[in-house]
């Protein structure tokens, strides 16, 4: 039976080897392709990392991150508040829902990037236009999820509340909001991802400052090392936000009422 042990030991290493192989292959490919390409086409990983170091120490990257993050945070916060409010409102007031739901669904179908030129003409450049773009990207998933959640409250829960003569405000506090929170968090998770797309797209057009604008500048200067470094930072931001969104959604998923 001792002959079995080496084999089982190897098998438990297999997942790690899988991940490691992928990482090593990627790093090797990056390095090799970079070394064999013209510097304005592709640069090796080492050059990318030194570009990143240069951007950070020179203050460019922290400045861009601060600008981007402030736009993103403002847009997301406003979108989540507005989306939750509208979603709850439409769920609890059937007349408003019947009246406005088709138009909201129609707006949801619009690719928001196509609205960016209109916004540019309407409100110009600067901080708030970018916030509006992020808001437009992030609002609809939050509204949709919240409304769907609040609409799915089973009538029995509301009947129990009513039989205890709960006021409207208490019904909201004790029934509607706790029930809807998991759905809201699903919407927030989607909004975090979409808002990031909006932020980058807005920064391409609506004034300097921010990671998207940095990318455009670097592309005009053919600073491919810098572009790859910036893309790496953006990817990291995306991964972190997606993980945060999933974590928040999971935390509140326990509150979901399953019939």
């Amino acid at each position, binding site marked *: 039976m001792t002959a079995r042990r080496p084999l089982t030991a190897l098998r438990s290493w297999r997942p790690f080897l*899988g991940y490691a192989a992928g990482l090593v292959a990627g790093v090797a490919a990056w390095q090799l392709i970079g070394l064999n390409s013209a510097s304005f086409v592709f640069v090796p990983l080492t050059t990318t990392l030194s570009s990143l170091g240069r951007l950070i120490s020179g203050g460019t990257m922290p400045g861009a991150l601060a600008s981007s993050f402030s736009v993103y945070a403002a847009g997301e916060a406003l979108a989540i508040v507005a989306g939750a409010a509208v979603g709850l409102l439409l769920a609890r007031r059937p007349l408003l829902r019947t009246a406005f739901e088709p138009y909201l669904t129609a707006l949801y179908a619009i*690719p928001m990037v196509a609205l960016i030129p209109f916004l540019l003409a309407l409100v110009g450049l600067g901080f708030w236009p970018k916030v509006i773009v992020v808001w437009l990207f992030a609002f609809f998933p939050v509204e949709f999820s919240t409304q769907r959640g609040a609409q799915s409250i089973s009538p029995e829960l509301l009947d129990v509340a009513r039989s205890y003569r709960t006021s409207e405000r208490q019904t909201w506090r004790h029934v509607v909001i706790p029930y809807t929170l998991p759905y809201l968090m699903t919407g927030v998770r989607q909004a975090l991802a979409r808002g990031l797309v909006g932020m980058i797209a807005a920064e391409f057009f609506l004034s300097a400052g921010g990671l998207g604008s940095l990318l455009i500048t670097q592309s005009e200067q053919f600073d491919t090392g810098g572009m790859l470094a910036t893309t790496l930072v953006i*990817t990291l931001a995306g991964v972190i936000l997606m993980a945060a969104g999933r974590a928040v959604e999971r935390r509140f998923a326990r509150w979901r009422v399953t019939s």
Partner: protein
Amino acid sequence: MNALAPGRDTDTPGGPAGIGGSGPADRRRERGQVLAVRAAAGLGIVAAWQVCAMALAPHYIARPLGILAQVPAVLGNQSFWSAAGSTLLAVAEGLIIAVVIGTAAGLVMGRLRDVDRAMRLYVDSFYAMPLVALIPLLTVWFGYTSAARLVVVVIEAMLPVIFSVAEGGRSLPAEFTDVARAYRAPWWRVWAGIVLPASLPYLLGGIDLAIGRALVGAVVAEFIASLNGLGYYILFNVRSFAEDKAMVALVVLVMFALAVRGFVSLFVRRRLPWYRDEASR
């Protein structure tokens, strides 16, 4: 209809209605009420838009009456349709390429755990990042050409397809492969006959996402690279203070998106009547 008034039932074709009102005539009345409420709300929105635009905004801001006035001009314009066709073609081409490559990659990832683990880092990273951030890099590589737009569309569309198909492959019930093994089915039979059809619901979910993302990618690529297309048409007209025309193009863009998704769901209903949306569970 009042059940207490005998004889009244005859003028409700299809069946009588109760006191509470759930017969066909009542349903028709309700539908009419819903339509009236929606039409009133829509009219209100449009009117508010028109009034606010006329009173507060500069003359070049889009407004409903202006948009309607420009519809014949835009739809009759040859260059508009060449732009629309350019975008449509790029998105369609990119979607087809993305679905083919994405399904293959997704199936491999879904069924071969080692490959899944090796590629997971890259698929997850690319899926989590805003892919529009790659567009400046792609314009350095491909120039301000439609090749850049096509690559953007392919990458944008491929990710959700890979993601969904891989998930489908991973969720394949073990009983299916057990039966195949019991019947000593060759590996290509298993893949083509079991894995692929079982992943179809996931694939279709991925395609639905891919259509939206592909459109976003195409539009942003056209913005940045000034390529002939609907996105650039919108940008150009807004910059030329012809926002009403740009709005007409936007509506066409949205209808195009809805049409493609409608086409996919029609295809599913016609060719795959056994399909049920299980992937959304």
